[in-house]
């Protein structure tokens, strides 16, 4: 029956793919939040309640995406830092952050909390996706995109900071990609049976990690932050080029907005829940 009805339907109007694509690209620059009056958010019920308790409300799920191309062949051979990769990483983040800012401002948000930071680094491009919930003080007016904050802190953490007089400012990011140094065969043979520190390796990795963190810090300073909390540092060789090692650091830049830090006066609790332990036979093996 359903088939016959389908056959009876008028043929669908052909979709102009080019126009659709153009529209999609257009929304990247001028995001159109959904026209729905209801709010969407990926916050848990608890988080929503706690946000409301300090007079904020979630509005909409917003995202920012950016893909940035990496020049051909930069991963293969060289010495020192892979500057074009480091720059591409910074640009990709810039683009994604800029878009999530604009989308948030358009939706009427004052900031985005609980941002999931997804980054993936490929041979030819670096892509960054940010997804979070736009929030604002209940009933507040729209603000300019430049004054929106973006933070990967959860709504709960945001509330805690808010209560003690701090405010998130934005994502501070930094990265640095380097080629691992090489040892000549002679040196490698000589060190074969020794306990020694490989100073040139240490120095290269150390410097790369430091410069990733230093870039993160300067981006926090540019935003006017007095601190960066929940710094995450990831590192490791690239899947597609084992000799290139990437270091990335990011966190949320914060600033004290109240006159003084307000202490929280925590109290001690002992939860009486059932302990979540089970008997595991594998544990007996001592790993």
């Amino acid at each position: 029956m359903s088939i016959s009805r389908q056959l009876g339907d008028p043929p669908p109007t052909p979709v102009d793919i080019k126009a659709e694509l153009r529209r999609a690209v257009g929304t990247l620059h001028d995001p159109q939040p959904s026209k729905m009056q209801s709010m969407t958010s990926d916050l848990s019920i608890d988080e929503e309640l706690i946000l409301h308790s300090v007079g904020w409300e979630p509005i909409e799920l917003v995202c920012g995406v950016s893909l940035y191309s990496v020049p051909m062949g930069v991963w293969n051979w060289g010495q020192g830092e892979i500057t074009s990769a480091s720059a591409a990483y910074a640009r990709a983040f810039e683009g994604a952050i800029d878009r999530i800012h604009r989308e948030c401002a358009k939706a009427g948000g004052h900031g985005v909390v609980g941002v999931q930071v997804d980054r993936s680094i490929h041979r030819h491009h670096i892509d960054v996706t940010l997804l979070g919930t736009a929030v604002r003080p209940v009933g507040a007016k729209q603000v300019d995109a430049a004054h929106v904050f973006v933070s990967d802190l959860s709504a709960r953490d945001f509330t805690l900071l808010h209560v003690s007089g701090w405010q998130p400012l934005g994502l501070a990011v930094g990265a640095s990609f380097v080629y691992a140094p090489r040892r000549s065969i002679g040196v490698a043979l000589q060190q074969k049976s020794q306990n020694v520190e490989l100073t040139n390796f240490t120095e290269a990795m150390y410097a790369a990690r430091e410069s990733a963190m230093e870039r993160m810090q300067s981006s926090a300073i540019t935003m006017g932050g007095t601190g960066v909390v929940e710094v995450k540092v990831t590192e490791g060789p690239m899947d597609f080029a084992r000799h290139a090692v990437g270091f990335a650091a990011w966190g949320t830049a914060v600033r004290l907005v109240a006159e003084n830090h307000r202490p929280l006066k925590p109290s001690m609790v002992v939860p009486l829940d059932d302990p979540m332990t089970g008997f595991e036979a594998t544990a007996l093996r001592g790993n």
Partner: protein
Amino acid sequence: MSDDPQGLPEATSHRLEELEHGLFTSDLSVNEFLLIKEVGFHPLGFVMGSSIYHTGIQTRKWGQSQELTKLTEAMYNARELAMTRMEEEAAELGADGVVGVRLDVNYYEWGKDAAEFIAVGTAVKAESGVSHRNKLGKPFTSDLSGQDFWTLMQTGYIPQGLVMGTCVYHIAHRGLGQTLGSAGQNIELPNFTQALYEARELAMTRMQDEADRLGASGIVGVRLEEKSHQWGSHTIEFLSLGTAVVKTSNDVTLPTPTTIISLDN
């Protein structure tokens, strides 16, 4: 850095300079950050130390349990180098201590016999200006989380340093005769038991020696880790880690805990 283990690379000094101008960075969660503020400390910066270390070769006897002193030495030295550099970064910032210290070992594909030892943590300073450095005049280090640090401080204890002991041990293989002899029986394997026992004891004693040197009255949060790294199944590193503490005051300001039954899943 060159051969001088005390020197820090140039990028470091630039980064630390920025931190001295009032910016702080920290890998602490917001909870931990606020709890540290609560006990009167302020985070100064994320500090780290690293050392890429080539471990030498030591021959092992197939049928003999023994400590592999050369490997033990390597694991000790490399961690010590990483920790000292981290402490140095902290000292440069004028910190009283480093909390939330994590020690990691990374292996890279390009250096199978070399491992990177990293120590990272958050340097903190007392807001009151009273020095909390340890007996040796260095910033204290501790692997306690912000929550643990808060609780510890409420009970009048103060951390002195992260102490560790390590022992790389080769455990003898069992001969064919022994294996056949014990097949089908419930018996203890004394040579394995003894080897594992001794290795753990050695690691723990070394940790306690370090704590003694700091004049500590106890070690909290001790963890015993066993890892084979890349040496095969019969060579195991036993690493014990903990935070040495001393009691500085007798007044316990810890509030009486409230018992709760949480309603979430």
